[in-house]
Protein backbone atom coordinates (compact mmCIF):
# COMPACT_ATOMS: atom_id res chain seq x y z
CA UNK A 1 0.00 0.00 0.00
CA UNK A 2 2.79 2.33 0.93
CA UNK A 3 4.27 2.12 -2.58
CA UNK A 4 1.05 3.51 -3.99
CA UNK A 5 0.86 6.36 -1.53
CA UNK A 6 2.33 8.93 -3.88
CA UNK A 7 -0.33 8.11 -6.49
CA UNK A 8 -3.09 8.81 -4.01
CA UNK A 9 -1.43 12.07 -3.01
CA UNK A 10 -1.20 13.14 -6.67
CA UNK A 11 -4.79 12.05 -7.24
CA UNK A 12 -5.85 14.19 -4.28
CA UNK A 13 -3.88 17.13 -5.66
CA UNK A 14 -5.59 16.73 -9.04
CA UNK A 15 -9.01 16.77 -7.37
CA UNK A 16 -8.12 19.87 -5.36
CA UNK A 17 -6.85 21.63 -8.48
CA UNK A 18 -10.07 20.72 -10.30
CA UNK A 19 -12.02 22.29 -7.45
CA UNK A 20 -9.81 25.38 -7.72
CA UNK A 21 -10.53 25.60 -11.46
CA UNK A 22 -14.25 25.51 -10.79
CA UNK A 23 -13.98 28.04 -7.96
CA UNK A 24 -11.89 30.45 -10.04
CA UNK A 25 -14.44 30.32 -12.85
CA UNK A 26 -16.85 32.17 -10.54
CA UNK A 27 -14.43 35.10 -10.28
CA UNK A 28 -14.22 37.58 -13.13
CA UNK A 29 -10.53 38.25 -13.74
CA UNK A 30 -10.94 39.68 -17.23
CA UNK A 31 -8.03 38.66 -19.47
CA UNK A 32 -6.57 36.60 -16.64
CA UNK A 33 -9.49 34.11 -16.76
CA UNK A 34 -7.92 32.05 -19.53
CA UNK A 35 -4.40 32.47 -18.15
CA UNK A 36 -5.31 31.11 -14.72
CA UNK A 37 -7.35 28.24 -16.16
CA UNK A 38 -4.51 27.27 -18.50
CA UNK A 39 -1.93 27.53 -15.74
CA UNK A 40 -3.88 25.19 -13.48
CA UNK A 41 -4.50 22.78 -16.36
CA UNK A 42 -0.78 22.78 -17.19
CA UNK A 43 0.08 22.07 -13.59
CA UNK A 44 -2.31 19.12 -13.61
CA UNK A 45 -0.94 17.80 -16.90
CA UNK A 46 2.55 18.13 -15.44
CA UNK A 47 1.58 16.08 -12.38
CA UNK A 48 0.06 13.37 -14.57
CA UNK A 49 3.13 13.24 -16.81
CA UNK A 50 5.61 13.26 -13.92
CA UNK A 51 3.94 10.74 -11.65
CA UNK A 52 1.29 8.69 -13.44
CA UNK A 53 3.39 8.47 -16.61
CA UNK A 54 6.62 7.98 -14.61
CA UNK A 55 8.47 10.79 -16.37
CA UNK A 56 10.07 11.74 -13.06
CA UNK A 57 11.93 8.45 -12.91
CA UNK A 58 12.99 8.30 -16.56
CA UNK A 59 16.48 8.86 -17.91
CA UNK A 60 17.35 12.34 -19.18
CA UNK A 61 17.00 11.32 -22.83
CA UNK A 62 13.33 10.43 -22.37
CA UNK A 63 12.79 13.62 -20.41
CA UNK A 64 14.34 15.54 -23.30
CA UNK A 65 12.00 13.86 -25.76
CA UNK A 66 9.07 14.93 -23.59
CA UNK A 67 10.20 18.54 -23.30
CA UNK A 68 11.36 19.10 -26.89
CA UNK A 69 7.85 19.25 -28.44
CA UNK A 70 7.13 22.29 -26.25
CA UNK A 71 9.80 24.16 -28.21
CA UNK A 72 7.96 23.22 -31.38
CA UNK A 73 4.71 24.45 -29.83
CA UNK A 74 6.52 27.68 -28.93
CA UNK A 75 7.65 28.04 -32.56
CA UNK A 76 4.17 27.77 -34.00
CA UNK A 77 2.86 30.28 -31.44
CA UNK A 78 5.61 32.81 -32.11
CA UNK A 79 5.41 32.39 -35.88
CA UNK A 80 1.65 32.87 -36.08
CA UNK A 81 1.70 35.76 -33.61
CA UNK A 82 4.37 37.57 -35.64
CA UNK A 83 1.84 37.47 -38.46
CA UNK A 84 -1.32 38.17 -36.45
CA UNK A 85 0.06 41.05 -34.35
CA UNK A 86 1.66 42.98 -37.20
CA UNK A 87 -1.14 42.47 -39.74
CA UNK A 88 -2.95 45.58 -40.96
Amino acid sequence: MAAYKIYFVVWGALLVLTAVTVAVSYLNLGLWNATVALAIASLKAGLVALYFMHLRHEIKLVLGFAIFPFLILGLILVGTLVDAIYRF
Partner: protein
Amino acid sequence: MADHPNTSLPEDRGYLSEHGFRSWALTMDHKRIGVMYIWTTLGFFVVAGILALLLRLKLLVPGPALFSDHTYNVLFTMHGAMMIFLFIIPAIPSALGNFFIPLLIGCRDVAFPRLNLFSYWIFVAGIAVTVGTLAAPMDTGWTFYTPYSAQTSAAVTALSFGLFLIGMSSILTGLNFIVTIHTMRAPGMGWYRMPLFIWAMYATSVIQVLSTPVIGITFLLLAAERVFGIGFFDPAKGGDPLLFQHFFWFYSHPVVYVMILPAMGIVSEVVPVFARKPIFGYKAIAYSALAIALIGFLVWGHHMFVSGMSTVAGVIFSFLTFFVAVPTGMKIFNWIATLYKGSITFESPMLYALSFIFLFIIGGLTGLFLGALATDVHVHDTYFLVAHFHYTMMGGTVMGLFAGLHYWFPKMTGRMFNETWAKSAWWLVVSGFNVTFFPMFILGMQGMPRRYAEYPAKYQALNVVATVGSWFLALGVIIMFANFIKSLRNGPLAPDNPWRGLTLEWQTTSPPPEENFHEIPTVTDWPYGYGSRNEAPRE
Protein backbone atom coordinates in the same frame (compact mmCIF):
# COMPACT_ATOMS: atom_id res chain seq x y z
CA MET B 1 29.28 -12.56 -62.84
CA ALA B 2 29.58 -15.84 -64.72
CA ASP B 3 29.12 -16.03 -68.49
CA HIS B 4 26.05 -18.19 -68.07
CA PRO B 5 24.28 -16.62 -65.14
CA ASN B 6 22.40 -18.97 -62.93
CA THR B 7 18.77 -17.89 -63.01
CA SER B 8 17.12 -20.97 -61.54
CA LEU B 9 15.29 -20.63 -58.25
CA PRO B 10 17.71 -21.11 -55.35
CA GLU B 11 16.82 -23.41 -52.47
CA ASP B 12 17.12 -20.74 -49.80
CA ARG B 13 15.03 -17.70 -50.59
CA GLY B 14 15.71 -16.13 -47.18
CA TYR B 15 12.88 -13.98 -45.92
CA LEU B 16 10.99 -14.65 -49.16
CA SER B 17 10.68 -18.38 -48.49
CA GLU B 18 7.11 -18.36 -47.26
CA HIS B 19 4.28 -17.87 -49.72
CA GLY B 20 0.63 -16.95 -49.57
CA PHE B 21 -1.49 -13.99 -48.58
CA ARG B 22 -1.33 -14.60 -44.82
CA SER B 23 2.44 -14.83 -44.83
CA TRP B 24 2.51 -11.25 -46.11
CA ALA B 25 -0.58 -9.68 -44.55
CA LEU B 26 0.19 -10.82 -41.01
CA THR B 27 3.97 -10.64 -41.16
CA MET B 28 5.94 -8.78 -38.55
CA ASP B 29 9.17 -9.02 -40.54
CA HIS B 30 10.32 -5.46 -41.27
CA LYS B 31 11.58 -6.58 -44.68
CA ARG B 32 8.22 -7.93 -45.81
CA ILE B 33 6.46 -4.84 -44.46
CA GLY B 34 8.99 -2.73 -46.37
CA VAL B 35 8.26 -4.67 -49.55
CA MET B 36 4.51 -4.13 -49.09
CA TYR B 37 5.16 -0.40 -48.73
CA ILE B 38 7.27 -0.44 -51.89
CA TRP B 39 4.49 -2.03 -53.94
CA THR B 40 1.83 0.24 -52.48
CA THR B 41 3.72 3.49 -52.91
CA LEU B 42 5.04 2.66 -56.37
CA GLY B 43 1.50 1.71 -57.35
CA PHE B 44 0.33 5.21 -56.49
CA PHE B 45 3.38 6.68 -58.23
CA VAL B 46 2.13 5.03 -61.41
CA VAL B 47 -1.50 6.14 -60.90
CA ALA B 48 -0.59 9.74 -60.06
CA GLY B 49 1.96 9.72 -62.88
CA ILE B 50 -0.74 8.74 -65.37
CA LEU B 51 -2.84 11.68 -64.09
CA ALA B 52 0.15 13.96 -64.70
CA LEU B 53 0.48 12.65 -68.25
CA LEU B 54 -3.20 13.41 -68.84
CA LEU B 55 -2.74 16.96 -67.50
CA ARG B 56 0.29 17.52 -69.73
CA LEU B 57 -1.62 16.11 -72.70
CA LYS B 58 -4.41 18.61 -72.15
CA LEU B 59 -1.91 21.47 -71.88
CA LEU B 60 -0.66 20.65 -75.37
CA VAL B 61 -3.20 23.20 -76.60
CA PRO B 62 -4.04 26.56 -75.01
CA GLY B 63 -7.83 26.29 -75.26
CA PRO B 64 -10.38 23.75 -74.05
CA ALA B 65 -9.51 20.14 -74.87
CA LEU B 66 -10.04 16.57 -73.69
CA PHE B 67 -11.91 17.24 -70.45
CA SER B 68 -13.78 19.99 -68.61
CA ASP B 69 -12.14 22.61 -66.45
CA HIS B 70 -13.65 21.00 -63.35
CA THR B 71 -12.15 17.65 -64.30
CA TYR B 72 -8.81 19.40 -64.80
CA ASN B 73 -9.03 20.80 -61.26
CA VAL B 74 -9.90 17.37 -59.89
CA LEU B 75 -7.05 15.73 -61.78
CA PHE B 76 -4.35 18.10 -60.58
CA THR B 77 -5.69 17.85 -57.03
CA MET B 78 -5.57 14.06 -57.16
CA HIS B 79 -2.14 14.12 -58.81
CA GLY B 80 -0.77 16.33 -56.05
CA ALA B 81 -2.50 14.65 -53.12
CA MET B 82 -1.60 11.12 -54.25
CA MET B 83 2.00 11.95 -55.12
CA ILE B 84 2.52 13.73 -51.81
CA PHE B 85 0.59 11.65 -49.28
CA LEU B 86 0.50 8.20 -50.87
CA PHE B 87 3.81 8.12 -52.68
CA ILE B 88 6.58 10.54 -51.85
CA ILE B 89 6.19 10.87 -48.06
CA PRO B 90 6.13 7.12 -47.37
CA ALA B 91 8.16 6.05 -50.43
CA ILE B 92 11.64 6.18 -48.92
CA PRO B 93 11.08 6.29 -45.14
CA SER B 94 8.38 3.65 -44.80
CA ALA B 95 9.49 1.45 -47.69
CA LEU B 96 13.29 1.47 -47.97
CA GLY B 97 13.66 2.73 -44.39
CA ASN B 98 11.68 -0.20 -43.04
CA PHE B 99 13.64 -2.67 -45.08
CA PHE B 100 17.10 -1.26 -44.47
CA ILE B 101 17.30 0.47 -41.08
CA PRO B 102 17.54 -2.82 -39.15
CA LEU B 103 19.93 -4.26 -41.76
CA LEU B 104 22.19 -1.20 -41.71
CA ILE B 105 22.41 -1.02 -37.93
CA GLY B 106 22.79 -4.78 -37.58
CA CYS B 107 19.71 -5.93 -35.69
CA ARG B 108 16.99 -8.48 -36.28
CA ASP B 109 13.95 -6.22 -36.62
CA VAL B 110 12.62 -2.80 -35.69
CA ALA B 111 11.95 -2.09 -32.01
CA PHE B 112 8.16 -2.58 -32.30
CA PRO B 113 7.42 -5.09 -35.08
CA ARG B 114 3.71 -5.36 -34.28
CA LEU B 115 3.33 -1.58 -34.31
CA ASN B 116 5.13 -1.61 -37.64
CA LEU B 117 2.52 -3.93 -39.14
CA PHE B 118 -0.22 -1.79 -37.61
CA SER B 119 1.34 1.28 -39.25
CA TYR B 120 1.14 -0.41 -42.62
CA TRP B 121 -2.50 -1.43 -42.27
CA ILE B 122 -3.60 1.93 -40.95
CA PHE B 123 -1.86 3.39 -44.01
CA VAL B 124 -3.93 1.07 -46.19
CA ALA B 125 -7.10 2.06 -44.30
CA GLY B 126 -6.26 5.71 -44.94
CA ILE B 127 -5.75 4.95 -48.62
CA ALA B 128 -9.13 3.21 -48.77
CA VAL B 129 -10.88 6.24 -47.30
CA THR B 130 -8.91 8.61 -49.54
CA VAL B 131 -9.72 6.67 -52.69
CA GLY B 132 -13.35 6.44 -51.54
CA THR B 133 -13.63 10.24 -51.73
CA LEU B 134 -13.36 9.97 -55.49
CA ALA B 135 -17.14 9.55 -55.29
CA ALA B 136 -17.28 13.33 -54.71
CA PRO B 137 -13.83 14.26 -55.97
CA MET B 138 -11.87 17.17 -54.57
CA ASP B 139 -10.94 20.15 -56.68
CA THR B 140 -9.26 22.22 -53.99
CA GLY B 141 -5.64 21.55 -54.91
CA TRP B 142 -3.60 19.36 -52.59
CA THR B 143 -3.33 22.21 -50.06
CA PHE B 144 -7.07 22.30 -49.13
CA TYR B 145 -6.96 26.03 -48.45
CA THR B 146 -9.89 27.52 -46.60
CA PRO B 147 -12.35 29.17 -47.14
CA TYR B 148 -12.98 27.15 -50.32
CA SER B 149 -12.27 23.79 -48.67
CA ALA B 150 -14.64 24.69 -45.82
CA GLN B 151 -17.47 25.46 -48.23
CA THR B 152 -17.16 23.13 -51.22
CA SER B 153 -19.51 20.16 -51.51
CA ALA B 154 -16.61 17.84 -52.36
CA ALA B 155 -15.70 15.14 -49.85
CA VAL B 156 -13.24 17.25 -47.85
CA THR B 157 -14.24 15.83 -44.47
CA ALA B 158 -13.84 12.24 -45.59
CA LEU B 159 -10.56 12.99 -47.30
CA SER B 160 -9.16 14.72 -44.24
CA PHE B 161 -10.12 11.64 -42.21
CA GLY B 162 -8.25 9.45 -44.69
CA LEU B 163 -5.19 11.67 -44.52
CA PHE B 164 -5.48 11.70 -40.72
CA LEU B 165 -5.07 7.91 -40.75
CA ILE B 166 -2.14 8.13 -43.15
CA GLY B 167 -0.56 10.72 -40.86
CA MET B 168 -1.03 8.39 -37.90
CA SER B 169 0.84 5.71 -39.81
CA SER B 170 3.61 8.20 -40.51
CA ILE B 171 3.92 9.17 -36.82
CA LEU B 172 4.04 5.57 -35.62
CA THR B 173 6.64 4.64 -38.22
CA GLY B 174 8.80 7.60 -37.20
CA LEU B 175 8.46 6.68 -33.53
CA ASN B 176 9.41 3.10 -34.29
CA PHE B 177 12.53 4.20 -36.16
CA ILE B 178 13.67 6.62 -33.44
CA VAL B 179 13.47 3.91 -30.78
CA THR B 180 15.08 1.37 -33.10
CA ILE B 181 18.03 3.65 -33.88
CA HIS B 182 18.50 4.53 -30.22
CA THR B 183 18.28 1.06 -28.76
CA MET B 184 18.94 -1.63 -31.37
CA ARG B 185 22.33 -0.80 -32.90
CA ALA B 186 24.79 -3.70 -33.26
CA PRO B 187 27.48 -4.03 -30.59
CA GLY B 188 30.25 -1.53 -31.26
CA MET B 189 28.13 0.75 -33.44
CA GLY B 190 28.43 4.15 -31.76
CA TRP B 191 26.62 7.15 -33.20
CA TYR B 192 29.58 8.08 -35.40
CA ARG B 193 29.82 4.59 -36.82
CA MET B 194 26.25 4.68 -38.11
CA PRO B 195 25.78 4.81 -41.87
CA LEU B 196 24.65 8.26 -43.02
CA PHE B 197 21.36 6.82 -44.28
CA ILE B 198 20.59 6.12 -40.62
CA TRP B 199 21.39 9.70 -39.62
CA ALA B 200 19.11 10.91 -42.39
CA MET B 201 16.33 8.55 -41.32
CA TYR B 202 16.72 9.66 -37.72
CA ALA B 203 16.27 13.32 -38.67
CA THR B 204 13.33 12.33 -40.88
CA SER B 205 11.65 10.43 -38.08
CA VAL B 206 11.98 13.36 -35.70
CA ILE B 207 10.17 15.58 -38.21
CA GLN B 208 7.49 12.96 -38.79
CA VAL B 209 6.79 12.60 -35.08
CA LEU B 210 6.77 16.33 -34.33
CA SER B 211 5.07 17.87 -37.34
CA THR B 212 2.49 15.31 -38.43
CA PRO B 213 0.27 15.82 -35.35
CA VAL B 214 -0.15 19.46 -36.41
CA ILE B 215 -1.70 18.51 -39.77
CA GLY B 216 -3.83 15.92 -37.97
CA ILE B 217 -5.23 18.60 -35.68
CA THR B 218 -5.68 20.95 -38.64
CA PHE B 219 -7.76 18.34 -40.44
CA LEU B 220 -9.86 17.87 -37.28
CA LEU B 221 -10.44 21.63 -37.04
CA LEU B 222 -11.42 21.74 -40.71
CA ALA B 223 -13.81 18.83 -40.18
CA ALA B 224 -15.25 20.55 -37.08
CA GLU B 225 -15.79 23.70 -39.12
CA ARG B 226 -17.51 21.80 -41.92
CA VAL B 227 -19.62 19.47 -39.78
CA PHE B 228 -20.41 21.54 -36.68
CA GLY B 229 -20.03 25.01 -38.16
CA ILE B 230 -17.42 26.09 -35.61
CA GLY B 231 -15.61 29.16 -36.89
CA PHE B 232 -11.90 28.40 -36.73
CA PHE B 233 -11.13 29.63 -40.22
CA ASP B 234 -14.29 31.46 -41.34
CA PRO B 235 -13.88 35.22 -40.77
CA ALA B 236 -17.67 35.64 -40.60
CA LYS B 237 -17.59 33.56 -37.41
CA GLY B 238 -14.49 35.24 -36.00
CA GLY B 239 -12.05 32.76 -37.51
CA ASP B 240 -8.96 33.43 -39.59
CA PRO B 241 -8.43 31.76 -42.98
CA LEU B 242 -4.70 32.42 -42.72
CA LEU B 243 -4.61 30.34 -39.54
CA PHE B 244 -5.31 27.33 -41.73
CA GLN B 245 -2.35 28.19 -43.93
CA HIS B 246 -0.08 28.62 -40.89
CA PHE B 247 -1.12 25.22 -39.54
CA PHE B 248 -1.00 23.55 -42.93
CA TRP B 249 2.50 24.77 -43.75
CA PHE B 250 3.76 24.18 -40.23
CA TYR B 251 3.39 20.54 -41.22
CA SER B 252 3.80 20.67 -44.95
CA HIS B 253 7.03 22.58 -45.03
CA PRO B 254 8.94 20.37 -42.57
CA VAL B 255 7.48 17.41 -44.42
CA VAL B 256 9.34 18.33 -47.62
CA TYR B 257 12.41 17.42 -45.58
CA VAL B 258 10.74 14.11 -44.74
CA MET B 259 10.73 13.63 -48.49
CA ILE B 260 14.25 14.85 -49.28
CA LEU B 261 16.36 13.82 -46.25
CA PRO B 262 16.09 10.06 -46.84
CA ALA B 263 17.01 10.60 -50.49
CA MET B 264 20.06 12.52 -49.32
CA GLY B 265 20.83 9.57 -47.05
CA ILE B 266 20.74 7.20 -50.02
CA VAL B 267 23.05 9.48 -52.01
CA SER B 268 25.46 9.55 -49.05
CA GLU B 269 25.56 5.73 -49.19
CA VAL B 270 25.81 5.33 -52.95
CA VAL B 271 28.43 8.01 -53.73
CA PRO B 272 31.32 6.59 -51.62
CA VAL B 273 30.62 3.02 -52.80
CA PHE B 274 30.90 3.92 -56.49
CA ALA B 275 33.67 6.49 -56.02
CA ARG B 276 35.62 3.99 -53.88
CA LYS B 277 36.53 6.73 -51.45
CA PRO B 278 35.70 7.34 -47.80
CA ILE B 279 32.84 9.81 -47.47
CA PHE B 280 34.14 13.35 -47.07
CA GLY B 281 32.88 15.24 -44.02
CA TYR B 282 31.00 12.45 -42.26
CA LYS B 283 30.05 14.52 -39.22
CA ALA B 284 29.13 17.52 -41.34
CA ILE B 285 26.72 15.39 -43.40
CA ALA B 286 25.32 13.76 -40.27
CA TYR B 287 24.72 16.99 -38.39
CA SER B 288 23.48 18.86 -41.45
CA ALA B 289 20.62 16.33 -41.59
CA LEU B 290 19.63 17.30 -38.05
CA ALA B 291 20.14 20.98 -38.88
CA ILE B 292 17.84 20.72 -41.89
CA ALA B 293 15.24 19.02 -39.71
CA LEU B 294 15.39 21.81 -37.12
CA ILE B 295 15.62 24.80 -39.44
CA GLY B 296 12.85 23.23 -41.51
CA PHE B 297 10.51 24.08 -38.63
CA LEU B 298 11.32 27.81 -38.85
CA VAL B 299 10.46 28.63 -42.44
CA TRP B 300 6.85 27.67 -43.13
CA GLY B 301 5.73 31.26 -43.61
CA HIS B 302 7.57 31.51 -46.94
CA HIS B 303 4.58 29.78 -48.52
CA MET B 304 2.40 32.73 -47.49
CA PHE B 305 4.23 35.82 -48.73
CA VAL B 306 1.38 36.89 -50.98
CA SER B 307 -1.51 35.49 -48.96
CA GLY B 308 -2.05 38.56 -46.79
CA MET B 309 0.39 37.68 -44.03
CA SER B 310 1.99 40.64 -42.24
CA THR B 311 5.05 42.15 -43.92
CA VAL B 312 7.06 41.79 -40.72
CA ALA B 313 6.39 38.06 -40.70
CA GLY B 314 7.25 37.92 -44.40
CA VAL B 315 10.64 39.54 -43.81
CA ILE B 316 11.42 37.22 -40.89
CA PHE B 317 10.42 34.07 -42.74
CA SER B 318 12.30 35.11 -45.87
CA PHE B 319 15.42 35.72 -43.77
CA LEU B 320 15.11 32.36 -42.00
CA THR B 321 14.51 30.52 -45.27
CA PHE B 322 18.02 31.27 -46.45
CA PHE B 323 19.43 29.34 -43.49
CA VAL B 324 18.04 26.03 -44.81
CA ALA B 325 20.29 26.38 -47.84
CA VAL B 326 23.39 26.26 -45.64
CA PRO B 327 23.25 22.64 -44.39
CA THR B 328 21.94 21.56 -47.81
CA GLY B 329 24.92 23.21 -49.48
CA MET B 330 27.24 21.52 -46.97
CA LYS B 331 25.95 18.13 -48.05
CA ILE B 332 26.40 18.92 -51.73
CA PHE B 333 29.97 20.14 -51.25
CA ASN B 334 30.77 17.04 -49.20
CA TRP B 335 29.46 14.71 -51.90
CA ILE B 336 31.46 16.53 -54.54
CA ALA B 337 34.56 16.38 -52.33
CA THR B 338 33.94 12.64 -51.96
CA LEU B 339 33.89 12.28 -55.75
CA TYR B 340 37.11 14.28 -56.14
CA LYS B 341 39.93 11.94 -57.22
CA GLY B 342 37.74 8.88 -56.64
CA SER B 343 37.78 5.77 -58.84
CA ILE B 344 34.29 6.47 -60.10
CA THR B 345 32.27 3.85 -61.94
CA PHE B 346 28.94 4.66 -63.50
CA GLU B 347 26.61 1.83 -62.60
CA SER B 348 22.91 2.71 -62.56
CA PRO B 349 22.66 3.50 -58.81
CA MET B 350 25.54 5.96 -59.19
CA LEU B 351 23.98 7.52 -62.29
CA TYR B 352 20.80 8.23 -60.36
CA ALA B 353 22.76 9.50 -57.35
CA LEU B 354 24.74 11.90 -59.55
CA SER B 355 21.50 13.03 -61.23
CA PHE B 356 20.18 13.74 -57.76
CA ILE B 357 23.13 16.03 -57.00
CA PHE B 358 22.88 17.84 -60.34
CA LEU B 359 19.12 18.28 -60.38
CA PHE B 360 18.83 19.08 -56.70
CA ILE B 361 21.30 21.93 -57.07
CA ILE B 362 18.93 23.45 -59.63
CA GLY B 363 15.88 22.70 -57.50
CA GLY B 364 17.49 24.00 -54.34
CA LEU B 365 18.88 27.21 -55.77
CA THR B 366 15.60 28.13 -57.46
CA GLY B 367 14.10 27.66 -54.02
CA LEU B 368 16.15 30.65 -52.93
CA PHE B 369 14.58 32.75 -55.70
CA LEU B 370 11.22 31.83 -54.20
CA GLY B 371 12.41 32.33 -50.63
CA ALA B 372 13.48 35.88 -51.44
CA LEU B 373 10.48 38.01 -50.57
CA ALA B 374 10.63 40.43 -53.51
CA THR B 375 11.24 37.82 -56.24
CA ASP B 376 8.52 35.61 -54.82
CA VAL B 377 5.90 38.32 -55.25
CA HIS B 378 6.71 38.17 -58.98
CA VAL B 379 6.92 34.39 -59.53
CA HIS B 380 4.53 33.13 -56.86
CA ASP B 381 1.87 30.73 -58.22
CA THR B 382 3.51 30.61 -61.62
CA TYR B 383 5.05 27.65 -63.39
CA PHE B 384 8.41 28.74 -61.95
CA LEU B 385 7.23 27.30 -58.65
CA VAL B 386 5.96 24.13 -60.33
CA ALA B 387 9.38 23.68 -61.95
CA HIS B 388 11.16 24.36 -58.65
CA PHE B 389 9.35 21.76 -56.63
CA HIS B 390 9.44 19.15 -59.37
CA TYR B 391 13.21 19.64 -59.55
CA THR B 392 13.46 19.10 -55.79
CA MET B 393 10.86 16.36 -55.46
CA MET B 394 11.22 14.45 -58.72
CA GLY B 395 14.77 15.52 -59.58
CA GLY B 396 15.72 15.12 -55.93
CA THR B 397 13.66 12.62 -53.97
CA VAL B 398 12.57 10.40 -56.85
CA MET B 399 16.10 10.21 -58.29
CA GLY B 400 17.30 9.29 -54.78
CA LEU B 401 14.56 6.66 -54.56
CA PHE B 402 15.54 5.24 -57.97
CA ALA B 403 19.19 5.21 -56.88
CA GLY B 404 18.17 3.32 -53.75
CA LEU B 405 15.94 0.89 -55.64
CA HIS B 406 18.77 0.02 -58.05
CA TYR B 407 21.39 -0.06 -55.30
CA TRP B 408 19.43 -2.36 -53.03
CA PHE B 409 17.46 -4.37 -55.61
CA PRO B 410 19.99 -7.27 -55.45
CA LYS B 411 19.77 -7.32 -51.65
CA MET B 412 15.98 -7.12 -51.53
CA THR B 413 15.23 -9.68 -54.24
CA GLY B 414 18.35 -11.84 -54.44
CA ARG B 415 18.52 -11.14 -58.17
CA MET B 416 20.38 -8.72 -60.42
CA PHE B 417 18.62 -6.44 -62.87
CA ASN B 418 19.77 -5.87 -66.44
CA GLU B 419 22.29 -3.02 -66.30
CA THR B 420 21.99 -2.10 -69.99
CA TRP B 421 18.25 -1.63 -69.71
CA ALA B 422 18.69 0.25 -66.45
CA LYS B 423 21.09 2.67 -68.15
CA SER B 424 18.78 3.21 -71.13
CA ALA B 425 15.95 3.91 -68.70
CA TRP B 426 18.19 6.38 -66.86
CA TRP B 427 18.95 8.30 -70.07
CA LEU B 428 15.25 8.59 -70.85
CA VAL B 429 14.24 9.50 -67.30
CA VAL B 430 16.85 12.22 -66.82
CA SER B 431 16.61 13.77 -70.28
CA GLY B 432 12.81 13.48 -70.31
CA PHE B 433 12.65 15.05 -66.88
CA ASN B 434 14.69 18.07 -67.92
CA VAL B 435 12.78 18.54 -71.18
CA THR B 436 9.52 18.41 -69.21
CA PHE B 437 10.34 20.71 -66.34
CA PHE B 438 13.05 23.12 -67.47
CA PRO B 439 10.69 24.96 -69.86
CA MET B 440 8.44 25.59 -66.86
CA PHE B 441 11.09 27.85 -65.29
CA ILE B 442 10.94 30.00 -68.41
CA LEU B 443 7.15 29.87 -68.62
CA GLY B 444 6.94 30.94 -65.00
CA MET B 445 9.32 33.84 -65.47
CA GLN B 446 7.17 34.91 -68.40
CA GLY B 447 4.17 34.88 -66.09
CA MET B 448 2.22 31.73 -66.89
CA PRO B 449 0.11 31.01 -63.79
CA ARG B 450 -0.11 27.50 -62.38
CA ARG B 451 -3.34 25.55 -61.87
CA TYR B 452 -5.22 27.17 -64.78
CA ALA B 453 -6.80 24.80 -67.25
CA GLU B 454 -6.20 27.17 -70.17
CA TYR B 455 -3.43 29.59 -71.04
CA PRO B 456 -2.71 32.38 -73.57
CA ALA B 457 -1.53 31.06 -76.95
CA LYS B 458 1.86 32.77 -76.66
CA TYR B 459 2.93 30.13 -74.10
CA GLN B 460 2.11 27.19 -76.34
CA ALA B 461 5.55 26.39 -77.80
CA LEU B 462 7.21 25.66 -74.45
CA ASN B 463 4.15 23.77 -73.27
CA VAL B 464 4.45 21.48 -76.27
CA VAL B 465 8.11 20.90 -75.39
CA ALA B 466 7.16 20.04 -71.80
CA THR B 467 4.42 17.64 -72.88
CA VAL B 468 6.69 15.81 -75.32
CA GLY B 469 9.31 15.60 -72.56
CA SER B 470 6.77 13.96 -70.26
CA TRP B 471 6.38 11.11 -72.79
CA PHE B 472 10.12 10.38 -72.73
CA LEU B 473 10.07 10.52 -68.95
CA ALA B 474 7.16 8.07 -68.86
CA LEU B 475 8.86 5.75 -71.32
CA GLY B 476 11.99 5.73 -69.14
CA VAL B 477 9.99 4.87 -66.02
CA ILE B 478 8.15 2.10 -67.88
CA ILE B 479 11.43 0.57 -69.05
CA MET B 480 12.87 0.79 -65.54
CA PHE B 481 9.87 -0.92 -63.96
CA ALA B 482 9.71 -3.54 -66.73
CA ASN B 483 13.39 -4.26 -66.11
CA PHE B 484 12.72 -4.70 -62.39
CA ILE B 485 9.72 -6.96 -62.91
CA LYS B 486 11.47 -9.11 -65.49
CA SER B 487 14.53 -9.39 -63.22
CA LEU B 488 12.33 -10.40 -60.29
CA ARG B 489 11.32 -13.49 -62.27
CA ASN B 490 14.46 -14.49 -64.10
CA GLY B 491 17.32 -12.13 -63.37
CA PRO B 492 20.67 -13.75 -62.59
CA LEU B 493 21.15 -14.60 -58.91
CA ALA B 494 22.75 -11.75 -57.02
CA PRO B 495 25.94 -12.20 -55.02
CA ASP B 496 25.78 -11.12 -51.38
CA ASN B 497 27.75 -7.96 -52.06
CA PRO B 498 27.53 -6.94 -55.73
CA TRP B 499 28.75 -3.37 -55.23
CA ARG B 500 31.49 -4.17 -52.66
CA GLY B 501 29.76 -2.07 -50.03
CA LEU B 502 31.00 -1.96 -46.44
CA THR B 503 27.72 -1.29 -44.63
CA LEU B 504 26.26 -4.21 -42.68
CA GLU B 505 23.44 -5.14 -45.07
CA TRP B 506 26.07 -6.46 -47.51
CA GLN B 507 27.44 -8.86 -44.89
CA THR B 508 24.31 -10.99 -44.91
CA THR B 509 22.90 -13.10 -47.72
CA SER B 510 20.91 -11.79 -50.69
CA PRO B 511 18.02 -11.93 -49.93
CA PRO B 512 18.58 -11.73 -46.17
CA PRO B 513 17.32 -14.57 -43.94
CA GLU B 514 14.22 -14.07 -41.82
CA GLU B 515 16.04 -12.44 -38.91
CA ASN B 516 18.60 -10.66 -41.06
CA PHE B 517 21.84 -12.09 -39.74
CA HIS B 518 22.82 -15.63 -38.82
CA GLU B 519 25.02 -14.02 -36.20
CA ILE B 520 24.73 -10.36 -35.16
CA PRO B 521 27.83 -8.58 -36.46
CA THR B 522 30.17 -6.64 -34.18
CA VAL B 523 31.17 -3.23 -35.51
CA THR B 524 34.75 -2.07 -35.12
CA ASP B 525 34.98 0.83 -37.56
CA TRP B 526 32.91 3.35 -39.52
CA PRO B 527 31.42 1.93 -42.72
CA TYR B 528 33.22 4.17 -45.23
CA GLY B 529 36.77 2.80 -45.37
CA TYR B 530 36.70 2.49 -49.16
CA GLY B 531 39.76 2.52 -51.36
CA SER B 532 42.12 0.75 -48.97
CA ARG B 533 44.96 -1.27 -50.48
CA ASN B 534 43.58 -4.67 -49.54
CA GLU B 535 40.15 -4.01 -51.07
CA ALA B 536 38.65 -6.84 -53.08
CA PRO B 537 39.07 -6.30 -56.85
CA ARG B 538 36.07 -5.58 -59.09
CA GLU B 539 34.37 -8.65 -60.46
